[in-house]
């Protein structure tokens, strides 16, 4: 048995290696075209310790805000989302709304200082959208609000976690 295993092992590992090589070229890049010259940071979300995320646009003038997959999963079925008022100006950490599940209203805090310019009215009609895609920034997604960001907001980003650090943080929880 052992000798067979010894003969098999190199074959298995060769197969695995080639399989891996094949799939790696097929897997679509998470950032669209693999253009190394594009700034990745623009499309990456940053996370707070309270499980909100913010995604800044290229020009760092507008941002999208929402709650993370981890938070949506912990909440269970969301029955109500309280959205912020338009033109509301907030500092980092200020409450901009709430998410309700199991008779508990959990505040949503803004990750950065900004002024709300748009809210996701889909969440008013169908609160469960936030469970389906809390980090989805498309028009059918569960993002909470879009906002205008000034200098001070862009600086707030420095205190937030990137995806990897956030993942490690949630694993500690």
């Amino acid at each position, binding site marked *: 048995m052992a000798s067979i295993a010894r003969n098999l092992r190199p074959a298995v590992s060769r197969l695995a290696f080639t399989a891996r090589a094949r799939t790696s070229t097929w897997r679509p890049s998470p950032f669209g075209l693999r253009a190394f010259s594009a700034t990745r940071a623009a499309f990456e979300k940053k996370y707070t310790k*309270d499980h909100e995320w913010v995604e800044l646009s290229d020009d760092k003038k507008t941002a999208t805000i929402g709650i993370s997959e981890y938070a949506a999963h*912990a*909440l*269970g079925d969301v029955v*109500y989302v*309280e959205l912020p008022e338009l033109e509301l100006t907030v500092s980092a*950490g200020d*409450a901009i709304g*709430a998410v*309700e*599940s*199991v*008779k*508990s*209203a*959990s*505040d949503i*805090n803004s990750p950065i200082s900004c002024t709300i310019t748009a809210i996701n009215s889909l969440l008013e009609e169908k609160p469960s959208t936030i469970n389906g895609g809390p980090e989805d920034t498309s028009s059918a997604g569960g993002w909470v609000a879009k906002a205008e960001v000034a200098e001070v907001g862009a600086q707030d980003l420095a205190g937030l976690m990137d995806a990897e650090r956030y993942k490690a943080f949630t694993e500690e*929880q």
Partner: protein
Amino acid sequence: MSRLPLVRHIHFKRVQPFTSISKLQAHIVHQNLLHKARPQTYPAPLPLILTFTSSPVYTFGRRDDPSTLDAAFITSLREPLPRGKHAASHERAGAEVVKTSRGGLTTFHGPGQLVVYPIFDLKGASVRAHLKEGLDVRSYVRLLEETTIDALAEPCLDIPCVRTEHPGVWTSLPGQESAKIAALGVHLRRNITSYGLGLNVNTDLRWFERIVPCGLGGKRMTSVGEIWRRKKFMEGRGRARGRVTHGHKSFLTRRWVEGFAKGAFGWEEKGEGALASYSVCGVEELRRGRFGWLGLGDVDLSADVAEKETSETTREPPRATEREKEEWSTPGGYPQSPDEIRSLIKAAKNFPGDRNGFESPDDGSAH
């Protein structure tokens, strides 16, 4: 050196204005938030459980907005319950209407209901010492419900309850529909809890008839007192269970807090001083030295006075005095000597249909 307790509990012995406790709660949440934002500057507050009985109040949750509701409906909520003519002055007061930031819809808090507000960080050190990953929303709500179920299952209370897909604690008697005995509504700000649970011990359930409690049409509210009365009726036994007394309510409070301390913080019965319970008469007592850890200072905890408060609700009922004057009038005014009083009492006993102001049981009009 004495150790700090695991968890603190403040029990209010007297009926409290709801808005006073809300303000106290907001202050404690703020203390917790300060520590969370700047742990080096602000010490970690210990978990705190507030238990109290509120003055009559209808509270709305996050989703409701009393300003969008019909003004006539709000006015009808403020009306006092219909009472007998000999109701004490505090029972003639109406209800306040208050909007809160908790989850859930409309509910009522008032005399006879035990309201429990645990205030602590779900992911804080106190919880993590017992539950490694802390609590999350759903497990916290589950803990609130299970603590209530366990407390009500105590032999001297003997009320079997269950959890359902609707948050809250439900009970029923054979042949009866299920009814909610405890309503639940929580607010979480950075995982700091506030608000909590309202457990009907001997609440006057007529208050609930004006609203759709917790937005569940077709479901009713019940109380420990009502369950006991029904059991007595169904079992046909004499005074099998008796009335719900203050002692029962105190016992229930203590059992609830102990059960919660056990579930959330790993409190054990033998733990020396681990559960520090304080019993106070009102919020102002919390400014005293031994409550220094609350850091109340000059924080305003005054009750918000409703506009509809007139002096009539606090005065003694005038009619009885006039009645006394009519029936017992003597040339000199009120009776001055024991003999006069004795003869007047004798005369009153012979007065048809009216014995010391109460309806005579003989003419069948007694309730």
